């Protein structure tokens, strides 16, 4: 994360950190990424059973480290019903390790937003391995290929997909988009909630392709949002911590939802309040918040982070929770500079989600 404000570097993840990460990851989820609650319970259970997880700063990874990210793939709605089995979280990493014939040294996060910020904590605890303090996006995106690792040439395959019954698939695909497509089919057959491990890389590749410090960042954001900690302007505090800006304080006056190709798409209409009184804004979302507009003008787009926070508490509001009457603050924060390259914008800019708009990114971010 290119945040101007350095987060305190965490060295381990214990029970307190799990709670804080869960709160912060909901902000980095930019409306999507799934409710971190189940991930937090799983991580807490694993930490209780095996002890705190050591956190390795990206900069300290040796070049020859073997780093395997792990994540949950599928529908968060399914995950809250069919909770994974105890060994499932670690098994995706085991399967891939065996397939590669390598000895894994570190577990990593694919995304820092939502439930997948904490699934790797549970996996690392189960496997007794350290977790890398970083992730593949610095936020949450819906599709598997939408990681910086795709830009830095790390392949999504071979890829392990495991279910709770002991089934596993190892995919070898021609590119990262095919990995997304085939893994999703397998996941659906497995009951729509599977554990995956992919993007195997060495330490040098991890340093090139991961966003540094995002676990620490989620934890410090979460600490900022502990009740009473952020004072009377929690959204402002979040914006400052992320090096971003509060672009609007508003009330949600309408939410329109529709579904196409499996994604919950929609638009929320915001009526400005306070210094933004009189203006009307809209947020287009597809699980995550993607385009923020005011009066026909685009104010911000993905891959920058568009977070809708409860104005009073600073708590992140998911696109599923949005409803009339919510008092929200729209915080826009800069994405990792690598997302701002032409290749990055092609992968995760408005066009990648089918919007005709050009990317509009927060100014003043060092490239």
């Amino acid at each position, binding site marked *: 994360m290119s945040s101007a404000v350095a987060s305190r570097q965490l060295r381990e993840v214990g029970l307190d950190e799990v709670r804080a990460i869960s709160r912060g990851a909901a902000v980095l989820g930019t409306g999507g990424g799934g409710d971190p609650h*189940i991930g937090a*319970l*799983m991580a807490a*259970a*694993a930490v209780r059973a095996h002890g705190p997880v050591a956190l390795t700063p990206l900069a300290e990874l040796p070049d020859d480290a073997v780093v395997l990210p792990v994540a949950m793939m*599928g*529908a*968060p*709605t*399914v995950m*809250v*019903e*069919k*909770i*994974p*089995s*105890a060994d*499932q*979280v670690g098994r995706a990493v085991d399967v891939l390790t065996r397939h590669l014939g390598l000895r894994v040294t570190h577990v990593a996060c694919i995304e820092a937003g939502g439930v997948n910020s904490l699934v790797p904590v*549970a996996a690392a605890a189960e496997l007794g391995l350290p977790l890398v303090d970083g992730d593949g996006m610095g936020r949450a995106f*819906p599709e598997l290929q939408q990681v910086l690792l795709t830009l830095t040439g790390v392949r999504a395959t071979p890829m392990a997909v495991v279910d*709770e*019954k*002991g089934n596993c698939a190892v995919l070898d695909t021609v590119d990262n988009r095919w990995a997304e497509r085939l893994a*999703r089919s397998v996941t*659906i057959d497995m*009951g*729509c909630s599977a554990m995956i491990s992919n993007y195997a890389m060495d330490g040098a590749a991890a340093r090139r392709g991961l966003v540094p410090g995002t676990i620490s960042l989620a934890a410090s954001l979460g600490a900022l949002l502990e009740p009473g900690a952020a004072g009377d302007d929690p959204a402002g505090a979040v914006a400052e911590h992320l090096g971003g800006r509060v672009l609007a304080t508003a*009330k949600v*006056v*309408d939410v329109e*939802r529709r*579904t196409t*190709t*499996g*994604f*919950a798409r929609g638009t929320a209409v915001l009526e400005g309040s306070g210094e933004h009184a009189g203006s009307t804004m809209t947020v287009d979302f597809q*699980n995550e918040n993607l385009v923020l507009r005011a009066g026909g003008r685009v104010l911000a787009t993905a891959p920058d982070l568009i977070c809708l926070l409860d104005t009073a508490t600073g708590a992140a509001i998911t696109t*599923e*929770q949005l*409803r*009339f*009457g*919510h*008092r929200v603050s729209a915080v826009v924060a800069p994405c990792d500079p690598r997302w701002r390259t032409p290749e990055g914008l092609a992968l995760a800019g408005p066009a990648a989600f089918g919007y005709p708009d050009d990317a509009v990114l927060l100014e003043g971010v060092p490239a």
Partner: protein
Amino acid sequence: MRIGIDVGGTNTDAVLLGDDDAVLAAVKSPTTSDVSSGITASLAALQGVRAFDPSGVRAVMIGTTHFINALVEANRLAPTAALRLGLPATAALPPMVDWPQRLVTAVSGRAYLAHGGHEFDGRTISALDPDELRRHAADMAAHGVRSVAITSVFSPVNTEFELRAAEVLAQELPDVAISLSHQIGRIGLLERENATIVNAALRELASDIVGGLFAAVAGAGIDAPIYLSQNDGTLMDVEHARRYPVSTFASGPTNSMRGAAVLSGVTTCAVVDVGGTTSDVGVLTRGFPREATTEVSVAGIRTNFRMPDVLSIGIGGGSLVRGGGSSVTVGPDSVGYRLTERALVFGGDTVTATDIAVAAGRADIGDASLVAHLDPSVVKAALARIAADVADAVDRMRTSSQPLPVVAVGGGSVLLPDHLAGSGEVLRPENFAVANAIGAAIAQVGGEVDRVFTIEPGRRGDVLEAARAEAVERAVANGAVPSSVEVLEIDEVPLPYLPGGATRIRVKAVGDLSLAPGAASDRREPAAVGTRG
């Protein structure tokens, strides 16, 4: 005639309603720790206010906070086992993993995992293993378990395994009460399981209390069916109440809202119930409270059964008033039940919202001369603060930009202005003091469907129609007059990240309770219980 009784934490309210729902008599008495003597006293008090022929009473509706209080106080809970079907899935988080230890101890909670469960689309995760269940049953018996909560993965989609496991357990443990999660909660395994365990732990107490209610009503010579009011404002018969005590948990605020609707004649509105410490704002749509869509914590346990969506703000008759000029604050701290010693109008030393109301001439409580010295600008600013905060709370509860009428009830409602910004006139019905009991007496019953449906292209209309028909059928099975049943709510949520048209559909139907002699819910021969109340 019918009788409505609301047994609150402090007061028990009772009303006698005529066949046209007119209030014939209303009484308020202190709640007793023994439910049946409290009901007996209320019925006698009603007779005292207006003599009536007990044989002319066609139904008695009771709302009670006893069960939720028993949970909060961890009092008289049965030794309970949680049996979860879903192995090898779900083992990462066993039953009661997120419970406060105090409550696990209070229910002597034991957790069992077994094979079973379904996928989101109804396929099985693994086959049910009766031998495995028998082994668990033997262990439960050895540990003195008296009530069991069974939860199977995706049982709202497919109820089969919960029903079959219940049969196996009933054979092994014939004296043990069994609660099934698909009859209690929604999708969300841990929350549904938690609600089911809580229900199971309350089963013995529910049986005692229901027996007591029955005896008290019979003792007053009333030979009419008894119903209990549920969280969603519909009624259940006593047999259902024995089996589903959690369904009464939020009946207090619900009864108050529904009573407000009847008293004001407005059925789609926001209700502001102003008490001593808080103002609770809820929304009624066609007479029924809107339900919370998120999880609700009860005594520190996350659950997902049906609860009304209520927003509480810290403004009530006992709220502390501080500061002067434009910086006046009201609440959120309150003198609470000590209002009659602390408020200025009662000779106390603390400026409360009640003092402001008296100083402004809105209420005649205590000694008005004791607040005559209050600065008029402070009084005005405090009232403006209250009006702004309540208006804001009402606004947050609205679901559309359409204006919503506001009905004010509760002793503290004198604090509210006659007009609220954004909402217009504030309606203040008569008899607001017994709104709870009137809410309990409004006889309607409901039926609900909440499942994930697969909607193939072009079939959406058929699927919705099938779901509606099923909800209506369930309402009728629960005792509704078929011709009166209407669909109250349809909620359709496509499941994200899932292709194939998987859609969660909730339909709720309600109808008037059949009060005809020999109707399905006659109390002496309880009918089969509907799958949902």
